[in-house]
């Protein structure tokens, strides 16, 4: 009897959450991923000094999440009313939970930046003596909490990456989005984009040698992360392929049309193919060159952007 009557007309007419949201998801992923890898390297190597990698990661994570907010708020039809979220907080909404996490996470990344650039900020403020003394006072208090701030930063960086996945996996109408794999995929792809961004900024702005021990460590963990990412995407595809009637119809997104091109050329070709070719197929000389370093870093960031674009657009196009 359930199939006896049905309607197929919808009022939304197409993709409601467009590219600004995909860009925001990328920026949040980079922000969280960069901070996670840099702090993990710090713990793993028991470092005490502020390495160029950690400096770069702190700067990247603050800049990307702040820039991401511009896209997130800009996508609202009533951007000037965004503060209504804070006064009418709804605990059952993933978006509200995410906003709460973001409002803790952004200050954390800011404090991380303050730790990293304490000297530079003091030099800038030196022209005004009163400001410098205030800054020194604040920093002396903040420095006492540094271990705690670092741990909280890692925890919230993971929460930020994961929540962006949960945000869209609760949309039951869209089989590509409504999967348990999505938050995991977003954490892992965030790690790979964050690693690439942090190492590029470390080398470019903070003159870290591209063959330094920190960046070598990142290079070795890059490939397993990429492998897990491919595995999760394959799992997503297979779960749709073996799923119910509606899930099966969405697999066309991977097989033909604009979104299939975006997936195969963007995600697979750019994101995974180019870094692999540059680093393994063309010999040691090219693999260790500066151009290859930046090119493969850019390629994996763009690849993750393509993945977010694919998920957002194909996900909302193939609804029930």
């Amino acid at each position, binding site marked *: *009897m*359930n199939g*006896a*009557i*049905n*309607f*197929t*007309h*919808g*009022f*939304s007419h197409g993709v*409601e*959450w467009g590219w600004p949201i995909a860009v925001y998801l990328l920026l949040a992923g980079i922000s969280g991923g960069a901070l996670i890898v840099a702090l993990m390297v710090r713990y793993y190597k028991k470092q005490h000094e502020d390495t160029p990698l950690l400096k770069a990661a702190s700067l990247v994570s603050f800049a990307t999440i702040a820039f991401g907010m511009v896209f997130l708020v800009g*996508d*609202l*039809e*009533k*951007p000037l*009313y*965004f503060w*209504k*979220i804070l006064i*009418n*907080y*709804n605990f*059952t*909404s*993933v*978006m*509200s939970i995410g*906003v709460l996490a973001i409002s803790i996470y952004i200050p954390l990344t800011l404090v991380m930046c303050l730790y990293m650039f304490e000297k530079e900020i003091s030099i800038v403020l030196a022209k005004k003596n009163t400001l410098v003394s205030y800054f020194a006072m604040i920093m002396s208090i903040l420095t006492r909490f540094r271990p705690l701030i670092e741990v909280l930063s890692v925890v919230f960086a993971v929460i930020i990456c994961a929540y962006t996945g949960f945000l*869209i996996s*609760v*949309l*039951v*109408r*869209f089989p590509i989005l409504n999967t348990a794999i999505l938050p995991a995929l977003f954490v892992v792809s965030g790690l790979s984009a964050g690693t690439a961004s942090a190492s590029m900024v470390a080398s470019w702005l903070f003159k870290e040698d591209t063959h330094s021990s920190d960046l070598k460590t990142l290079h070795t963990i890059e490939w397993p992360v990429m492998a897990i990412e491919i595995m999760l995407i394959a799992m997503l595809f297979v779960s749709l392929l073996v799923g119910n009637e509606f899930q099966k119809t969405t697999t066309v997104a991977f097989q033909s049309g604009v979104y299939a091109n975006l997936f195969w050329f963007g995600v697979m070709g750019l994101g995974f193919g180019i870094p692999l070719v540059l680093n393994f197929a063309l010999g040691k000389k090219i693999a260790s060159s500066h151009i290859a370093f930046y090119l493969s870093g850019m390629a994996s960031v763009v690849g993750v952007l393509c993945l977010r674009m694919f998920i957002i657009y194909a996900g*909302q196009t193939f*609804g*029930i």
Partner: protein
Amino acid sequence: MENDGKRRAFLKVLGLGSVTLGGAGYTLMADATQEPSKAKPHYGMIFDQNKCVGCTDCEVACKKVNAVPAGQARLFVENKTDPATPMEKKYVRVSCQQCEDAPCVKVCPSKACHRDSKTGIVTMNPDDCIACKYCIVACPYDVRFINHKTKAAENCNFCLNTNLAKGKEPGCVEACKYKALVFGDLNDENSYINQILHVKDSVRMKPTYGTKPSLRYIPVVKVGV
């Protein structure tokens, strides 16, 4: 003859007993009938496909009553006539399903999309809506939209602020010449909507989502001879 007295006594007891028990039963019944009126209403609607002719008078009335901007709609009548049998016309109402377990209310970050405290109807507070479109993508039925004029999300709320506030039936129900739409309180056992639901088979749209829509559909079912 001794039995006669006993029988009389027995009849007396029976009579008195039935009166008192009946009375008690009646007061209990009265309590039971008063209960639903005290309970919160649960408004529902029936769309009867057997009666709908696709005249779209309901659509027109809805736009007029709720001042829906041109080119947008809270309510749409979709033609679902099977091309193989063009003479057997089939229409279906597309509108907010008024779910008991509404995903839009759950995901709204600013509580703009909420359940009205008096009537339990899922409705909007346009001032609190930041138009993040989360409710639109979360709705399994795709029946929500951003009103171009108010820039706030909107859905069919059974004319909560318009006709219902004036004590009238929703605009679409008033406008329907063929009585294909019935509106009423599902918590009131005596309401006309319940009387129909008792005697007719009705279905909910996409029941697998578990959102428990308050909109019921009576489909055309041709058994064939």
